[in-house]
């Protein structure tokens, strides 16, 4: 099915000014139906959740739990397996601090990772005296199951790996990695920040134990994200914070935590934001994740073809649109990525990210680009015109300023 892009674009008031937003990897735009749901909570039924007995409090609790169910549906999980957190970063920190590591155990991660799925493991390695093993990729960012097989062994407690690289758009073979890890008795945490918003993700099919993702990258509000924890693991993962809302009973010298997601959601949660994230999940599912992925692939193909014709360009990652998501990083010869980004913005209103995109090890050791790169990324609301204006301006920059 083809997406009705013009209709979708009408939902995003941000686009009405004619700006061209190609930085959805950093954060996505928010459509009107999601904003409406958020405001509806503040305007119509604002009350705390899971506490009051009066009718409005019940309405708020139902809306909050319904949002959890919608987010669960998006990744084919049970609602009880979804924990609302602030963002993907808080989710990885929760797992790093909540798992009971023993001295000498091993964590396996990769060179592709975002700092949020990297430095948390460096820290826990030092505090708990663990070993951290980093799987290296080839120049294009490809990782094969055999690369992991060499690192995962009986001592490996956790494999922490991205589902989609936020720089190269490549997708490591999660299913195979999970199989290898489970054979050795290891758990697998998948960083889904760049996959859940853009492609159909099914935790049952992937088989992973944890999946972390953010609301703000999937058309939802900022300040809310989700961590999927496989149901039977929840007893063995400690919460990051405890307090109001997370207990069954408290006495003078004891406390007993509740079961299920409530255990992890101490204090008043970001209620409006969670409701917004639920609405965003519904919005994406109504459009269809497969349709979104198809649309992004078309734009990516156009972008890759156009970039290949620009002189002086270093394009990172696979050249084939089938092998990557709609995240494209590059450099123009002799130009600082920030200068390219400013020129695109000032002359054509094209917004792209520049710098190291929170992935310094990748830029330094794989891409050999210590100054970072320019990154353009697409989402469901982008169209061919966006891509063409971006390419035209970039071609002009390359011809005249490089």
């Amino acid at each position: 099915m083809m997406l009705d892009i013009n209709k979708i674009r009408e939902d995003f008031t941000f686009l009405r000014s004619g700006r061209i937003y190609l930085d959805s990897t950093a954060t996505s735009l928010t459509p009107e139906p999601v904003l409406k749901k958020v405001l509806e909570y503040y305007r119509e039924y604002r009350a705390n959740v899971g506490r009051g007995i009066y009718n409005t409090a019940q309405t708020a609790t139902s809306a909050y739990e319904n949002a959890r169910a919608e987010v669960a549906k998006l990744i084919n999980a049970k609602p009880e397996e979804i924990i609302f957190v602030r963002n993907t970063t808080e989710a990885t920190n929760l797992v790093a601090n909540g798992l009971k590591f023993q001295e000498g155990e091993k964590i396996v991660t990769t060179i592709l990772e975002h700092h949020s799925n990297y430095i948390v493991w460096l820290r826990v390695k030092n505090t708990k005296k663990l070993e951290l093993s980093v799987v290296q990729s080839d120049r294009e960012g490809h990782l094969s199951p055999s690369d992991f097989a060499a690192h995962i062994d009986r001592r490996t407690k956790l494999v922490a790996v991205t589902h989609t690289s936020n720089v190269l758009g490549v997708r490591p073979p999660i299913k195979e990695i999970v199989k290898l890890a489970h054979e050795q008795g290891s758990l697998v945490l998948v960083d889904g920040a760049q996959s859940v918003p853009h492609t159909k993700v099914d935790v049952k099919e992937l088989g992973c134990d944890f999946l972390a993702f953010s609301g703000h990258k999937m058309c939802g509000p900022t300040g809310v994200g989700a961590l999927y924890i496989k149901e039977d693991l929840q007893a063995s993962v400690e919460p990051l914070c405890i307090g109001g809302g997370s207990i069954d009973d408290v006495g003078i010298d004891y406390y007993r935590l509740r079961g299920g997601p409530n255990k992890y959601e101490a204090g008043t949660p970001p209620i409006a934001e969670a409701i917004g994230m639920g609405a965003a999940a519904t919005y994406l599912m109504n459009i269809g994740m497969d349709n979104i992925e198809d649309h992004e692939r078309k734009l990516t193909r156009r972008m890759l073809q156009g970039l290949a014709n620009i002189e002086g360009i270093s394009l990172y990652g696979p050249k084939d649109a089938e092998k990557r998501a709609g995240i494209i990083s590059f450099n123009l010869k002799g130009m600082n990525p920030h200068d390219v980004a400013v020129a695109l913005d000032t002359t054509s209103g094209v917004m792209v990210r520049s710098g190291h995109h929170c992935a310094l090890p990748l830029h330094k050791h794989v891409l050999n680009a210590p100054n970072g790169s320019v990154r353009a990324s697409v989402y469901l609301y982008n169209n061919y015109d966006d891509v063409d204006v971006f390419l035209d301006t970039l071609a002009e920059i390359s011809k005249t300023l490089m």
Partner: protein
Amino acid sequence: MKTLYDYYRLFPHTDCGYCGSTSCLTMLRRYCLGKSDLNSCIYFKSGELPSPKISYSPPHLKEPPTEKISYIRPCPSEPTKVTIEVNVLPQTHSPYGYFDMITADSIFDRQIPNLKISPSLGIVRIESEAGDVMVFSEGKVIIRRGADEKRAFWEISRAVRLLWATVNRKIRAESAH
């Protein structure tokens, strides 16, 4: 009607993009360079706009420009270095431009090393050891990787003085009102 900015005033300023350029001003700059055809503009084609007679005369000003600092920050990728943005035209809401980069191109004609001009985009880029400067036609000047604040401001002033002869005098007079 003398300069391309005079002509630009007659435009509807829609930046519709039908001509293939990213904005009306970019299209006009390209036209002046012989790189685009006015007939690609749907407004021109419909007869709403007169045929242009554009010419250039390098303008000059009596008083120096005032620099308004937008920000001074550590460089995002190199925190020991400084990035500064200034606007030489305060309240720079004028879409017509301040520096005329077509004039700049005709004056410098790539004779200064480490200086690159994009007349079509309206950008001058100057590389130096003390930092890399980008000057935009609307009056924005950005320096990146400035060695320190003092040297960074020196580089900014140097770039502005260099482009002094290209200042779009008429726009400046208008904005003074």
